[in-house]
């Protein structure tokens, strides 16, 4: 494969697909393409179908939300609703003023109103919101209250690795697996209840980027709380090299990619180094296959010169302006790097006595430093012989992490997560430039995120350029629908939730290969994914719904707290669409009073109204063709307030309202971000 071809590899896949799409795109007649760089409207009142189609959205029926809602959907796990102070549309009709939520001890300010209070225009609000999210404070009241409400459920999260390992690694399954299961439950609570949404979005991102199959064996299970805390959470917004070197030395990664057995002579094991280059740093887009090292094109200048890095200077003059550095990596770089990283180990029960500690150690007897080595230097051997294992391995990680190919690859992945399945190249370039310029900064990732999230491209991106992955989808539903439950250990309801969620195809930490769960919609549009996502929502709303104390999601409470008097089905639908989706379009979701459900201006409003009223199903009765599940209720006829709390045949009002809320949560408007 020649150089040109190799550059066109994986990284260009998305772009080429888009080019194909652009060439033969059937734009609806009369639908004008939006001007380039247009900023999404803040009114949220325009059905931008043409924009949706030309952007290649997953569903053509999505209405562009207000700026605040879009930002909250893209940056984190969607807005959480706590009060409705900001709502203006129709608020005099159906919403009580001065509402105070009564049923939760964990209420905080509503996300949308918080965003809107951060400035006088969208740019100002966005900048302030991004700054706030990029600088998470230790205070995280909702999440802390959640964790505190489940004593004993999260004990290993704060303990040092050595403590957890030495006490649990050589005990039975329930002992060594505990850190894994605590972390799994922690991540649901964190994503659902934390104020620092971008932070946990990034923890999730790095968890895929540095994917480890969490259930591989006891050493990975037992180190899981440390992996999540000491690697992913510590460096989520920090410096990329720091993140990668921390991952390289962590027992979970040493174990998963077999670097812990990489040794001298016949014991060479290239698994870790291959993924260090291909997945963690430079990406397959910068892989030139089995070319000879000296055949690879050199970069026009040495990218390491500007770093002023003592390792790169002291060991082989790798940062000298005259040292040629390869644009791409080849198989021989991987194999040689694997030699450099021989002897990396962790202290397990064989070596440390008792259970060991999981600490990173090196075995110099197994480290091959007999000869000089060439990695990314076009075949010229520059890494000196006789380096110790830690130093030589560190050098390899620096060569990979500081390479310009890494900046491009990471920038593309970040933009793909935060903006679009097909992010604009202009944005990738900007993000890459920031990432590259700040390779030595402690806030390198933070700066890169700032570049992305305050860019014109981000502001112009649309809701629906991403299909929510199951974790994003389920957590965003918990936030939107008022889930009021701490997912904890040794708790049947939590176990049921996890069991149901695990069928969605994105069980946490459960992707077996090191590339992590895919981040584009093609992977997540299988029937099984969709059914199990919808089914998990069904569980969330139904679980213990009749029990005023224990119900997992507070749909009934929210309804009664916010809806005045005897509401009509239309009022209930308008209220719940607004609550779940974060806004109301100018004409409402269902149209003015007496608008038939078929003529509702939005598909989701029409469907929710049809469901709640049980119209258009051929009637209720049980004869052939009578497909309604309950008696008809006219759209604008009030329902007795007391009936809403009842769940009696044949109206089943309580579960009917739950069912209507499910319809909204199942809608394409909510399934995408």
């Amino acid at each position, binding site marked *: *494969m020649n150089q040109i*071809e190799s550059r066109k*590899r*994986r990284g260009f*896949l998305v772009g080429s*697909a888009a080019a*194909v*799409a652009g060439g*033969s795109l059937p734009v609806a007649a009369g639908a004008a393409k939006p001007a380039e760089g247009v900023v999404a409207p803040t009114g949220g009142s325009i059905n931008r179908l043409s924009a949706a189609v030309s952007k*290649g*959205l*997953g*569903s053509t*029926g999505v209405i562009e939300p207000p700026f605040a809602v879009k930002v909250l959907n893209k940056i984190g796990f969607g807005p959480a609703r706590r009060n409705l102070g900001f709502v203006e549309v129709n608020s005099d009709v159906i919403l009580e003023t001065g509402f105070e939520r009564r049923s939760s001890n964990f209420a905080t300010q509503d996300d949308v109103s918080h965003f809107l209070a951060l400035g006088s225009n969208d740019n100002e609000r966005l900048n302030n919101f991004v700054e706030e999210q990029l600088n998470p404070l230790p205070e995280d009241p909702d999440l802390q209250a959640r964790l505190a409400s489940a004593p004993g459920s999260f004990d290993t999260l704060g303990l040092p690795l050595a403590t957890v390992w030495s006490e649990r690694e050589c005990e039975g399954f329930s002992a060594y697996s505990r850190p894994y299961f605590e972390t799994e439950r922690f991540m649901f609570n964190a994503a659902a209840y934390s104020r620092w949404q971008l932070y946990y979005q990034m923890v999730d991102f790095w968890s895929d980027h540095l994917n480890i199959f969490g259930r591989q064996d006891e050493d990975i299970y037992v180190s899981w709380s440390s992996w999540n805390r000491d690697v992913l959470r510590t460096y989520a917004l920090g410096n990329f090299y720091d993140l990668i070197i921390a991952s390289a030395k962590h027992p979970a990664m040493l174990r998963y990619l*077999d670097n812990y057995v990489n040794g001298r002579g*016949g014991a*060479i*094991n*290239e*698994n870790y180094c*291959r993924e260090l280059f291909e997945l963690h740093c430079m990406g397959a887009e910068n*892989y030139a*296959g*089995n070319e000879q090292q000296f055949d690879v094109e050199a970069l026009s200048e040495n990218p390491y010169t500007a770093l002023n890095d003592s390792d790169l200077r002291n060991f082989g003059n790798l940062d000298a302006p005259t040292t040629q550095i390869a644009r791409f990596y080849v*198989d021989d770089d991987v194999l040689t790097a694997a030699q450099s990283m021989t002897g990396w180990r962790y202290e397990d029960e064989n070596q440390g006595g008792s259970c060991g500690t999981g600490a990173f150690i090196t075995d110099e007897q197994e480290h091959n430093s007999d000869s000089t080595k060439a990695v990314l230097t076009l075949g010229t051997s520059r890494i000196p012989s006789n380096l110790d294992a830690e130093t030589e391995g560190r050098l390899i990680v620096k060569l990979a992490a500081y390479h310009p190919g890494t900046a491009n690859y990471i920038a593309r992945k970040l933009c793909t997560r935060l903006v679009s399945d097909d992010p604009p190249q202009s944005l990738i370039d900007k993000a890459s430039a920031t990432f590259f310029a700040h390779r030595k900064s402690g806030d390198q990732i933070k700066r890169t995120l700032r570049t992305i999230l305050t860019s014109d491209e981000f502001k112009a991106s649309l809701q629906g350029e991403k299909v929510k992955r199951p974790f994003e989808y389920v957590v965003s539903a918990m936030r939107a629908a008022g889930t009021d439950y701490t997912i904890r250990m040794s708790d049947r309801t939590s176990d049921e939730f996890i069991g149901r969620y695990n*069928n969605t*195809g994105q069980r946490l930490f459960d992707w077996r*290969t090191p590339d992590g769960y*895919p981040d584009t*919609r*093609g992977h997540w549009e*299988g*029937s*099984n*994914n969709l*059914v199990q996502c*919808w*089914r998990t929502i*069904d569980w969330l709303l139904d679980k213990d719904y009749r029990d005023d104390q224990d119900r997992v999601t507070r749909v009934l409470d929210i309804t009664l707290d916010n809806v005045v008097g005897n509401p009509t089905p239309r009022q209930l639908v308008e209220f719940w669409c607004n609550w779940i989706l974060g806004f109301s379009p100018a004409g409402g979701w269902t149209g003015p009073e007496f608008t038939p459900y078929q003529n509702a201006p939005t*598909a*989701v409003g*029409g*469907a929710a109204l*049809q*469901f709640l009223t*049980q119209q258009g199903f051929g009637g209720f009765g*049980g004869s052939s063709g009578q*497909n309604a*599940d309950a008696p008809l209720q006219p759209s604008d006829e009030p329902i007795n307030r007391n009936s809403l709390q009842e769940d009696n045949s*044949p109206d*089943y009002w309580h*579960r*009917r309202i739950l*069912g209507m809320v*499910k*319809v909204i949560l*199942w*809608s*394409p408007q909510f399934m*995408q971000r």
Partner: protein
Amino acid sequence: MSKKRSINLPRRRFIAGAGAAATATGVGLGFSQAVNAGSGSAPTKLFVYLFLRGGIDGLSFVVPTGGANFNHYAQDRDATFIEPNEPLNLFGSQFGLHPFCTALHSIAPRVAIVHACGHPLDALTRSHFDAQETIELGTPGNLSGVSGFLNRYLQTQNHSPDAIFTALASSSNPPTSMAGYPDIATLDSAGGFSPNSGTFADTHLMMLDSMYSGTGSLDLAAQSTVDAVNLINSFDLDDYQPAGGVSYPNTGLGSDLALIAQLWKLDLGISTATVDRGGWDTHNTQNTLNPNGGFGRNIAEVSDAVTAFYLDIANDPVKNENDICLVIQSEFGRQVSENGNAGTDHGYADPMVLIGGLITGGLYGTFPSIATGDRIGDGVMPTTDFRNVHATVMDRVLGNGPGVVSQVFPDLNYQPVF
């Protein structure tokens, strides 16, 4: 009050506009966007594609037992070595199946093994992800495509307008091999396959249908999903009795293949099905002959499951084993030399296995010399382009004729393997 459950038997919805929609959403049909609905007899053949993810040690699956290659193999293996008297002899040759493959060996007259399959020499890769992607795209050396080879194959099939499913992926997620095909039913298990099953189940499904009536990729996916839910709920899939007293292993692969057999027998219109089995990336402690773990357990499961599938169809009073072909492939083999951890690192060529009623059992292709100097990167040198195996299956085993090959693999210099 209970109501008679009404089943909306699904309609075919992907045909009109599917090409346009898929293109608009960046999925992209490679070509042949016209689905030949209603223009002839519906396909009656089934292509089942079992992908062994992780890169199988082909030398532990189809094991050299004699000759010079046995000596080369024996010399570089230790913990992963299989003594020459243990493999189950194949057709009197100097190869045998792994000793745990007694089931597969029992149907050997209907099993074709193609030696040393892999990427062409100018497109070799040792990356799992590159190798799997380019195999599934059917484009060695080129990752830029957006259309899987089974998508292109599916496009050539005359699916009946009455077909309910045409493509089945027995996994949570659609595989790359079917990328671009707008009508994939992914189905992990039949149990619990509905958004809810309570009082409002029917009207809920209708509302999902109504909200996803657009032409985006998610719209199409949701429509297929609603069809799938309706269908699955209309059949009793949890109480399946295989034909002829066959029993599938009680494993993920066993139940996946049982579900494919079951749906095939229901005449839903399926022409292509995929199933995955992972666990072959045996860098460390391969456990080649361990019946309870690692390679040994995995290969026994594969053998038992694919044999059960074949016999289930062969014994069925209605279905005919001549109408199916099951193809087993992995992304690459392992190195000939064992590594220092009683495991094996990424290599190149490995065998592909075909099972079907119209297969004449035998060893096909060429097993190259594995003398040290004849290897490539210590892997087995590929001698058969994997695309020629799929092409042979489509052309000769499933009876589509050679014309199908140019549509599925337009760049292939087609050379049938038998």
